């Protein structure tokens, strides 16, 4: 069973979703929780069986799909993808468990299970086309979740989300096809296998163009400034569960893809674009943080804060050294946990008051002390307090990038200031002061079902902040092999000097595509 | 002046142009059909001439087929026209625009 654990992880929720159509309406929630829990346990088993000392892919599966065109069903996990898979299983589980009463709950749960399939699929895929399939497919359930259960602007938001990302990923698809073509030219064989592509060394100009093509797809997904405007709408309109999964997992697809595709495949281009991207990331960090500060709707604050944090992840990724990349991967997980929790928290208050405007609140700390405490914890995690999960990632990301540029890191570091500004301001508006609004005076504190989701998240937030090693170590091993690969592959002097040589990394066999064109 | 191939071709082209103008200008369905017949037949002239010029029968064969097809086309066209006339009492093109956009 372990040989096919990844396939099981991918398709089990989808199959379960199919059966879900047959389940009675009243018991669908229990069914959903059961399925998601099994999935989560399976993902934990994956972790358990995962050998942290191996830097390469594990649990590989291969099945010819369209061999004539080099498309194969290849799966595998390494330290980079492992935890995001676990995280997606985890969030689906607590998402379903803490689902508040919604209309058409059956459709919701079935959709969530389908979504889970696509999420796991994206992170487990080792074939570009299989990756692309899940990448695109993930849009559909999310479209439905936003569009069917969202706020008043839900249709606009969902369509914007879908089309924007769709357009971007189509450009990426063209890039993939080019990549496969170059591989074909170099070897005479079609292949979309990512590991094959890793061995291909492209001339720098090709790298630049392909990097740009992939970049558009990823940047919209992340989302990077100035492609971020779909996100506030999507978050603003989506139901709580949608926002949680969107922020926790779906956004990570973009940053994950940078590490999976852009860096190892185009090391020279990565170095070439490092500073422009860092500048974009800095704009993301500061600009969106300021925009977040100006928001009136608490969910929008969290939404914009996501963009801001994604900027730090990008900075870490493009540090192109082990510290930075490990940090950015860790921050992906951290941001997943924290922003997921924050959206859940916003959902809690929304369920009670059916508004998210901060001006409606104030003094909630009196009325809902437990809520205020958990919110405070997540707030502190979000602003990167040490010993919370976010700090590890942010620290490492910025530390990593510092090797590349001092001044840009200084600018990026403003994140910790501006992040504090909007978060504290929002917290102050909602929780501090006297209870001015009559409607708030009798709000019930968080209930058991909500705690079911929030407490595990709080525990993770602290646990991984204090002891990140179990996660950081496998990440580190895989990242080292990627950095070494990048170093070995890079052509230009600049890239060779920017990307550290770790020497101890694995030796890679290479295929030169220098003759291509 | 000897009538050569070029004359036939020019004639054919002129007739074709007339047919085209007719197609564009006619609002009466029946006259429109006439115009299309002119189109087809102008080509027939050219085919016959070229065929003669090459001493090859293919062109004439083509012309025959065109004639046959033109005939069947008219049959179908008139059938449609009659039904239309039965239903609407007119064969004016301008009224035929319930679908648009």
């Amino acid at each position: 069973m372990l040989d096919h654990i990844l396939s099981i992880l991918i398709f089990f929720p989808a199959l379960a979703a199919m059966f879900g159509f047959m389940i009675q309406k009243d018991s669908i929630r229990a069914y959903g929780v059961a399925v998601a829990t099994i999935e989560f346990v399976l993902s934990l088993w994956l972790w358990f069986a995962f050998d942290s000392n191996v830097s390469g892919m594990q649990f590989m599966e291969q099945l010819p799909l369209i061999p004539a065109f080099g498309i194969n069903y290849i799966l595998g996990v390494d330290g980079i993808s492992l935890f995001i898979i676990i995280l997606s299983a985890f969030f689906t589980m607590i998402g379903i468990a803490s689902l508040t009463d919604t209309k058409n709950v059956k459709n919701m749960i079935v959709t969530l299970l389908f979504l889970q399939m696509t999420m796991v699929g994206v992170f487990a895929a080792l074939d570009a086309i299989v990756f692309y399939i899940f990448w695109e497919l993930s849009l559909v359930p999310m479209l439905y979740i936003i569009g069917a259960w969202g706020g008043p602007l839900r249709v606009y938001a969902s369509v914007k989300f879908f089309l924007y990302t769709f357009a971007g990923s189509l450009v990426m698809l063209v890039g993939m096809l080019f990549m496969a073509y170059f591989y074909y030219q170099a070897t005479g064989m079609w292949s979309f296998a990512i590991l094959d592509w890793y061995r291909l060394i492209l001339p720098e100009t090709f790298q630049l163009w392909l990097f740009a093509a992939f970049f558009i797809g990823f940047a919209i997904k992340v989302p990077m400034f100035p492609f971020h405007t779909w996100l506030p709408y999507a978050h603003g309109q989506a139901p709580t569960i949608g926002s949680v999964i969107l922020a926790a997992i779906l956004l990570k697809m973009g940053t994950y893809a940078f590490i999976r595709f852009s860096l190892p495949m185009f090391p020279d281009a990565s170095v070439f674009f490092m500073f422009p991207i860092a500048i974009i990331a800095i704009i993301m960090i500061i600009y969106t943080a300021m925009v977040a500060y100006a928001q009136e709707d608490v969910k929008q604050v969290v939404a914009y804060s996501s963009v801001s944090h994604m900027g730090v992840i990008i900075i870490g990724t493009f540090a192109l050294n082990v510290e930075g990349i490990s940090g950015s991967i860790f921050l992906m997980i951290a941001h997943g946990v924290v922003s997921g929790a924050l959206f859940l928290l916003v959902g809690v208050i929304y369920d009670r008051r059916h508004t998210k405007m901060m001006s409606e609140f104030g003094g909630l700390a009196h009325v809902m002390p437990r809520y205020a405490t958990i919110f405070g914890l997540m707030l502190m995690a979000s602003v990167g307090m040490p010993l919370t999960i976010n700090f590890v990632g942010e620290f490492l990301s910025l530390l990593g990038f510092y090797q590349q540029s001092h001044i840009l890191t200084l600018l990026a570091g403003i994140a910790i200031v501006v992040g504090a500004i909007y978060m504290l301001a929002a917290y102050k508006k909602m929780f501090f002061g006297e209870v001015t609004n009559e409607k708030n005076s009798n709000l019930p504190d968080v209930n058991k079902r909500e705690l079911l989701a929030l407490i595990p998240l709080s525990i993770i937030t602290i646990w991984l902040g204090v002891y990140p090693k179990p996660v950081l170590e496998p990440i580190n091993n895989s990242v080292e092999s990627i950095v070494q690969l990048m170093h070995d592959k890079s052509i230009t002097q600049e890239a060779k000097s920017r990307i550290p040589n770790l020497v101890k990394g694995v030796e890679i066999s290479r295929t030169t595509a220098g003759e291509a064109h | 002046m000897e009538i050569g191939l070029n004359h036939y071709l020019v004639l054919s082209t002129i007739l074709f142009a007339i047919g085209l103008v007719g197609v564009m200008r006619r609002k009466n369905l029946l006259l429109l059909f006439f115009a299309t017949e002119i189109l087809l037949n102008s080509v027939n002239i050219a085919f016959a001439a070229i065929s003669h010029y090459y001493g090859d029968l293919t062109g004439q064969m083509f012309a025959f087929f065109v004639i046959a097809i033109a005939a069947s086309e008219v049959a179908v066209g008139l059938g449609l026209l009659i039904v239309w006339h039965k239903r609407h009492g007119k064969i004016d093109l301008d009224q035929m625009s319930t679908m648009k956009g």
Partner: protein
Amino acid sequence: MEIYLYLALFSPLAGSLFAALFGASPRTKIAGIVPSFLLFVSFVSSTVLLTHILSGGDIVQVEMMTWMATGDLYIPFGFVVDQVSVTMMMVVTVVSTVVHIYSIGYMDHDKGFNRFFSYLSAFVFSMMVLVMSDNFAGLFIGWEGVGLCSWLLIGFWYHKESATWAANEAFIMNRIADLGMLIGIFLVYWNTGTLQYAEAFAAMGDLDTEILTWMGIFLFIGAMGKSAQFPLHTWLADAMEGPTPVSALIHAATMVTAGVYLVVRANPLYDLIPHVGLFIASLGAFVALFAASMALVNRDMKRIIAYSTLSQLGYMFVAAGLGAYWVALFHLMAHAFFKALLFLGAGNVMHAMHDELDPFKMGGLKKAMKWTFIMMTLASVALAGIYPFAGFFSKDLILEVAMIEHHYIIYSVLLFTAGLTAFYSFRLVALIFHGEERYKLFGVHPHEAYKFMLIAMSPLLILAIIAGSFKMTYFEMVTAVLPATEYHVHSAVTYWIMTIGTQVFVILAIAFAYKKYANSSVQVPDGTSVMENRFCYKVLSNQYYIPYFFEEYLVKPYRELSTVFWKQVDLKVVDATVDGIAKAIYGTGEKTRGMQSGNLSTMLKWMVAGTVALLSLAVVFGLAVRYSGEIKTILSGLGVQ
């Protein structure tokens, strides 16, 4: 010894968690007593460690577990008890134990009693992490931790707008400095390859001065935030919105001295870059004077003490900047005792006066609050630096350091500030405890604080009096790790002139303060007196208009810019562009759908038109090909290639 280290470190955490258990339940004494007891445990453990170190024992160093490890980076949770950290541990545990016990009385009637102790103990834990860590990352954990607790405690009365505002201000301002600190840490890592103090400092000797300078500057920026040095000082005065024990513990004795601790800790670095040290000293001297001047006219009891703290921090930085690290640390210790005492005394007064803060509205309280009066007076004496109180030994030493290092301007500034310090301290004492009983106008019936609170304060009193006598023991101990420069003025005559001169100057200042404020003619100022309308007074009472400047030129523009970014840029430019593309496409559809008019004639015309267009293109192309030779000739004639 390790067990004591862990006890000292984790008892406060245990106390905090214990109190947190009662966070949601109503006030219960146990939530105060247990943390206090645990802190006492921590104190005892620290004492054990102190005696261990004093008796020449080895430095205790432990590595608890790995924290972060990736690439070449390896950061453990490592703790060290050496001469420097044990000093800080003692200061922290003593003051915090006292403050905890005191708070049981002080917070007696507060709804958030349990919560308070949870926060307070958490603060102590963070502070212990800060001082005990053996690497920069651990220091940063504590650094941020105390920041967090400070935020929680300043904003403890969260229903008060001013309190939450001050809390946020403190947090954000500290964050700005923390960024500098973070950058400093990055610099250390990338240049030395490690964050462990010992190894990093060892590696610094080989580095460029330029890099070291940047390191020094960035680390000091971090210190400036925590220690509220100009221009990041405004938060400290506003932080007085927190409960008074908090002010005593955090904003006088411990947290604000973290910056000094950092500079002391990084002494190998600052020794290599004396020019940065000089800058630190100059800034310190400036802040000392600057803060003291603001204290002169302030009418808020706690703020006066806060400014005094600020001023004393300036003294410490002067010492640290000039390389007299042990002096800085010594003053830090002495200051912690008497300043905490002063604050706690102020707390008593506040309780007695129902949270009234304006000393002009008090007066003559010495009858009602004898013990408090005595304690505060003695603390003020210590602060003014009168022999043989603690302040004399530590503060005069700093003056001597400045003198010996030939920084006469700094010396004069510090001397002048000493006079100011004496003046404002006793202005406060005089206004509160002497003169007419002005509080009667406001119908207040003051009473002395609980006995046990006074008893709890007494260790501080004793320490404030006798701390000076530890000087030599202390010197011998810390100079094992700090540069052991003894500061002695070369000629005895100069020494005596300096010392006695200073003493006389200070006593004169005290006398002046008493003369001006201890008589019965003092009135509650109503803004009409001549002095109040003087330019100087206005500048001082408005804190040099710096908060105003921050508000007008930083906060407001930031807020406005944020709104502009959101409403104008994000919605109207970035998003509008995206929507614009979509709308343009859709609009094109709407505009051109008329092409499909549904009229058969038009449709035929389109077909013919298309054909004709193609045909003309073909003809153009055909002609171009046929006459390509001629076209080329013409073009080349026109000069086109």
